[in-house]
């Protein structure tokens, strides 16, 4: 194995890991507060991707505008879903939340299929993003670089937000103990709504980046990455925002190296690998890499 092959795989792992991380953050924040595994989260990424594929031709003059607009659309949609589907269930058994999110996911997927048909759509990209940049013998696609930088930027911003702002600290408090945080005068609806908004926004960002990376999207593309992002969140320590980023990168790298260093006939088994990893983490270190091991509410 040559060094440049290794570095190339490393870069691929960081690129896919960035996408997992962006999706994992929202899952982790929402789970941290509500104990809800939001199966519909990956579908928000899908919706941003599908709308991007459809609207790009109109807006192609400004990819940045497209990017921001789609992220906002996903963020607002996440907010709306929380309001309509999840808020009426506060205090209900966890299973009811789980089932609801499954139902929401199904509605989003089928709805998008009804509107746009099930066939894949081409996601237009811009020259700077589809170009391959060479660094010695290593090549990096523009979209991957953009993905990496946007993810790191999001990580830094979110870390700053949750450590340094009053709302951010309140959000962590709510995530740690909902009852006690209410005793502090925090109305949990606000941090919850904010968690949905930020998380969905980042899922929207991931959706556009996904389109730029792979060049096509379809109404079902979000579900499995959504599940894998949950795996990433568990690996990193669910409820922890830095954990979501770490977990995303660990999963992305592990997956790419699994595929990259085994014979090609194994590449189809990457999901077996990913989900077996989940099993192992759940059994060996269920609190994840950065999660707190103290007894949380069940």
């Amino acid at each position, binding site marked *: 194995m040559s060094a440049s092959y290794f570095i190339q795989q490393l870069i691929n792992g960081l690129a896919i890991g960035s996408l997992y991380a962006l999706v994992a953050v929202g899952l982790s924040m929402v789970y941290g507060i509500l104990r809800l595994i939001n199966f519909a989260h990956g579908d928000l990424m899908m919706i941003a991707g599908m709308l991007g594929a459809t609207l790009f031709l109109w807006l192609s003059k400004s990819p940045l505008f497209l990017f921001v607009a789609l992220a906002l659309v996903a963020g607002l949609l996440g907010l709306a879903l929380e309001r309509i589907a999840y808020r009426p269930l506060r205090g209900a058994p966890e299973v009811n939340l789980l089932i609801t999110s499954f139902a929401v996911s199904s509605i989003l997927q089928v709805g998008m299929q009804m509107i746009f048909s099930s066939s894949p759509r081409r996601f237009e990209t811009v020259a700077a993003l589809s170009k391959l940049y060479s660094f010695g013998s290593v090549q990096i696609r523009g979209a991957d670089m953009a993905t990496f930088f946007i993810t790191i930027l999001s990580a830094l911003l979110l870390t700053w937000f949750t450590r340094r702002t*009053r709302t951010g*600290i*309140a959000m*962590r*408090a709510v995530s*740690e*103990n909902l*009852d*006690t*945080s*209410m*005793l*502090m*005068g*925090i*109305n*949990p609806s606000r941090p919850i709504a904010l968690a949905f908004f930020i998380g969905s926004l980042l899922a929207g960002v991931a959706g556009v980046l996904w389109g730029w990376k792979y060049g096509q999207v379809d109404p079902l593309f979000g579900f499995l990455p959504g599940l894998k992002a949950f795996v990433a969140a568990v690996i990193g320590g669910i409820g922890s925002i830095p954990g979501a980023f770490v977990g995303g990168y660990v999963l992305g790298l592990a997956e790419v190296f699994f595929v990259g260093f085994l014979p090609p006939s194994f590449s189809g088994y990457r999901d077996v690998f990913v989900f077996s990893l989940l099993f192992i983490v759940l059994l060996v270190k269920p609190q994840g890499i950065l999660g*707190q091991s*103290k007894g949380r509410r069940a």
Partner: protein
Amino acid sequence: MSVLEVSELELSYGGIRALKGVSLSLEEGQITVLLGANGAGKTSLLKAISGLVKPSKGEIKLWGESSLGWPAYRITSLGVAHVPEGRGIFAGLSVRENLQIGGFLAPSKEMPARIEQALTLFPRLKERYSQLAGSLSGGEQQMLALARALVARPRLLLLDEPSLGLAPIIAQEIFRTIRQVHQTGLSVLVVEQNARLALQVADYAYVLKTGEVETHGPASEIRGLEQVSKAYLGVT
């Protein structure tokens, strides 16, 4: 005017009746202690007052206004601070962040002064200022919980077993501080297993038994009651 007026309060968890018509009233500026065996319903009563659980019947009035059915954060904004059983500090937040969250409803420009004041009561917390709260000792965590409540500048302080699991000397320190802050005019309702300690600082006492008020009266009288001596003071 009474700070707190609880009348005929009933509360159940599924089929378990935790409170069966409890009435209680708190005078402004007094320390009231709530005694009772495990499972008597003390914690439930405190939670009902601060809005964490919903009673099925009865009335709760804070400063003359009915707060029944209000969410906890709204009751907090009236000036009620509840230090829950087991302290309820945020283990993943630093001491500083815990104190900041205690003042969540306070204007941000007052925060430094309020935190400073809380820290003068508990100098030990100053040394631990940037540590994670989860890394503190039990006594320090209780101090943090109390300090965090005081940052909110409450008018009514609810304390649920503040001495639980603490060394006697630390427990005494906690109670000394409770007395100290009470001198600023704060009303206090404290649940305590250590009746001897609590009755020393309290003005008034209620004794709860299986969800009902068994007896109540000025602390000095309660201390003299035979059944209280037997059950809670270890006198035989």
